[in-house]
């Protein structure tokens, strides 16, 4: 397993579920509040995602995934709360800054959506190895060439990261400055990146030859080394999620009529 993936095998039920089931959960969690059109639904899906993260013992690892969005959320609240074009009713004033109700409500909608998307996706990413997803997709007729592309990224990137450390040390030992004014740092960029990039591109040639020799271009149907048994829960959960989606659509249509 590469160091790039966020997945850690903990043997939980969520780990064993079929990747498609978890993908459908993400889809449902994102779409139901958007289709339903009520802010309270965000609270429900966000709570269920957090619950799933706790059950899957992944809550701690989910925090850094969500944390990066906080600065954005603050910016959104500032910009929309102060300057939203429909702003009328003042809500709160801090010195010369006046936050308006409409803007804050609008920002809250955006932020709930963002949090909901990030949390539900965290449930998926933290419990599914990407390789498994790619393999399942390939079994369903997804091009194996693109499957290879995705899998090999997970190998190539850690390799390049290692090369990067070597280059950084090598260039620093030659006296290259990587800190200081903006100009110095810009000047350092090309000497740092070009050796790694060059070697990566030159390696593609050898890699291509190696793949060609192993029959990469063959069009035969491939067989798979790992067989996975479908859990009973997969069918049940899939049916449940689908019915929730349909329910949301029906509810929306009804409330529009």
């Amino acid at each position, binding site marked *: 397993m590469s160091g790039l993936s966020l997945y850690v095998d903990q043997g939980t039920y969520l780990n064993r579920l079929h990747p498609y089931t978890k993908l459908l959960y993400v889809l449902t969690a994102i779409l139901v509040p958007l289709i339903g059109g009520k802010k309270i639904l965000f609270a429900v899906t966000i709570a269920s995602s957090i619950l799933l993260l706790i059950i899957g013992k992944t809550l701690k690892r989910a925090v850094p995934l969500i944390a990066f969005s906080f600065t954005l959320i603050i910016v959104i609240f500032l910009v929309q709360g102060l300057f939203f074009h429909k702003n009328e009713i003042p809500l709160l004033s801090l010195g010369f800054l006046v936050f308006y109700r409409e803007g804050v409500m609008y920002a809250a909608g955006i932020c709930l959506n963002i949090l909901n998307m990030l949390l539900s996706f965290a449930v998926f990413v933290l419990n599914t190895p990407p390789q498994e997803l790619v393999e399942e997709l390939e079994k369903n007729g997804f091009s194996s060439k693109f499957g290879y592309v995705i899998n090999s990224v997970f190998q190539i990137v850690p390799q*390049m990261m290692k090369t990067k450390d070597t280059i950084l040390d090598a260039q620093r030992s030659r006296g290259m400055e990587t800190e200081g004014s903006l100009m110095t740092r810009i000047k350092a960029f090309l000497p740092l990146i070009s050796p790694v990039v060059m070697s990566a591109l030159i390696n593609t040639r050898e890699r291509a030859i190696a793949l060609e020799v192993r029959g990469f271009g063959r069009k035969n149907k491939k067989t798979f080394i790992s067989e996975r048994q479908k859990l009973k829960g997969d069918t049940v959960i899939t049916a449940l999620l689908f019915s929730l989606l349909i329910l949301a659509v029906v509810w929306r249509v009804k409330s529009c009529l």
Partner: protein
Amino acid sequence: MGNLFKTKLNAATIVLIPACIGINYLGKLFASLLKLPLWLDCIGTCIGACLGGPVIGGVCGAINNIIYGLTTGDNITLIYALTSFGIGIAVGVTARMGFMETLPKSLICALAAGLAAVIISTPLNVMFWGGTTGNVWGDAAFAVTQANGLPVLLGSFIDEILVDVPDKIITIIIAFFILKGLPEKIKALYDVNAEVERLD
């Protein structure tokens, strides 16, 4: 025109895609390591587009964002796969038209990439973030436009232009120098018009 999108789909181009995605990661990493105020996260996409053509460039960009989403858990990046796809196509097409031959010409290529990014990202920004981009300078500009009562779409558009166009210009310049230094033996691998001569 058909030649613009002509693509070879052999082992060499397939292998090029992961390498380019690796380069994208690296660009982003070095940019943050050196604390540069730019993203520089599509150098690989541009290189891929110049070598393999618009289709490979677009695929590089799209898969890059998918993988980024899978490895950081940030599924909002997934939607920006559209932007990366557009950048790849724009660079690929302009490169095939001969705009990557000299440094001054490559600026046109950079503008095409920047415009593609702006046009695709702006509606996405408005839909998902209410117009902000997450870049300090761009968002400051957005706040100014909103304070002056300009429409959200226009504000977000200005926000994107300020952030994306300079970023793409630098990216293309870097890609240009890297491609210049690449041995002919590698470039020949991706030449669509190359003929394979059989000796048997």
